[in-house]
């Protein structure tokens, strides 16, 4: 192998790696995958809060839903509805969520907590 061949080989290897990287970025990284996980809270369709779900994050806060205040708790990379005024309490029974694509929904209060990030599924029919 001449010096020229080696140079060509090295150039090709570098170029292939670069192309592979670019292609990977374009095709296989869904929007948001590079970001860290975060819980997004919406009330009546408006985003009212985004909380990064790092493992040491610990907090609770109140959001004003359609029928009254609800308390949301964040603890060690997971989030849940802690207190709510609705009659059914379905949102409370949904418990903790921690994985991308999971959500807690309060229909009477029109409150949604969802975890943003690359989820293995695009949606779930139920």
């Amino acid at each position, binding site marked *: 192998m001449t*010096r020229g061949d080696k140079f060509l080989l090295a150039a090709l290897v570098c170029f292939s790696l670069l192309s592979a990287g670019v292609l990977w970025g374009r095709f296989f990284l869904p929007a948001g995958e590079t970001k860290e996980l975060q819980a997004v809270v919406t009330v009546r369709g408006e985003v009212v809060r985004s909380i990064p779900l790092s493992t040491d994050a610990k907090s609770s806060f109140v959001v004003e839903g359609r029928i009254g205040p609800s308390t949301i708790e964040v603890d060690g990379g997971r989030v849940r509805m802690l207190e709510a005024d609705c009659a059914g309490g379905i949102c409370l029974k949904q418990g903790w969520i921690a994985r991308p694509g999971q959500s807690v*929904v309060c229909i009477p209060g029109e409150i949604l907590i969802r975890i943003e990030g690359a989820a293995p599924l695009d949606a779930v*029919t139920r």
Partner: protein
Amino acid sequence: MNGRAVPIACALALFALGALYWLGPLKPASEYRSDQFLMDTLVSIKVYGDDPENLKAAVHKAYAEMRRISDLADAFPKPGTAEAKASDVCRINAQAGKAPVRVDDDILAMLATAQKYGALSEGAFDVTVGPLMDLWGFGGENPRLPAAGRVKAALALVGSKDLVLNQQDHTAFLRKPGMKIDLGAVAKGYATEKALQVLKDHGIEKALIDAGGNIRVLGRNTRSAPWKIGIKDPRKSDAIVAVLQLEDASAVTSADYYRGFEAGGKRYHHILDPRTGYPAGHHMSVTVVTRDAGLADILSTIFFVLTPEKALELADDMPGVELILISADGRIRHTRELRGKIQVQPGAGYHYDQG
């Protein structure tokens, strides 16, 4: 240095750049997502495209279209609204046994489709199930077990043969006083399909609408692969029993785990068999896959009410309609055409019957 190396490297570089340029547009530049509460559920819309302003405008028009359908189809007059402002469905119900009512073409279309498939199902589905739904209280906060005599009386007021639609005059008429339209198994799917049409009219080619678990997808997902849609495990929260791979299709599920109540140690859910007046008991859940979300919504209710054997037989007879069902005994079955588009992952308590 080898004299050929430079030209070859240049040619390869150009080729690769050209390929990247060509492949680039496959992944759209922007995503727009919105979550709105309407039709008594959460409706999430995600769209992808190159023009963020267009995406946003399209999604908001799609929601407006769903709200319009919802307002026409709502069976409960909003407190404080005058009779004249009540929904088309309220007006048809109020005029039952009296006079035909002029209604919006979308209401006529929903009623005509419902009537057609009701006949096809030999009564397993009926859009005039309103008196039974009222009796059980499934529209309200406190559903309850009604007395057998009252179920029988309500059954006498259920029957689409007494729903008269006139396409020329744009009217609908219920022949007997006390009859009532219930578009609960129709309107959400119909509105979802209309919303998707709005997105398409804005040039959108990649979208997902999740209307409370009724799914409609367009194009392929952000990985340029078919959308991966899970089917909820009917007995375990946060688990799935199967994954569907879908392109330009709907997946709608009817199941026994919603809006139920317990009485005398027995659980009752909200999907009533209009032939008996009682909740249908053959399935835990059924999922219909077909292109039109409106049809999927109606068919999921029909298949839920029919026995597994009849449901699979009927689905096989309908081109472009696929069915996955989990019967009350835990058996998971699906139509043959779904092979290759479904991965069943049965958990404990289920038995996957590949047929």
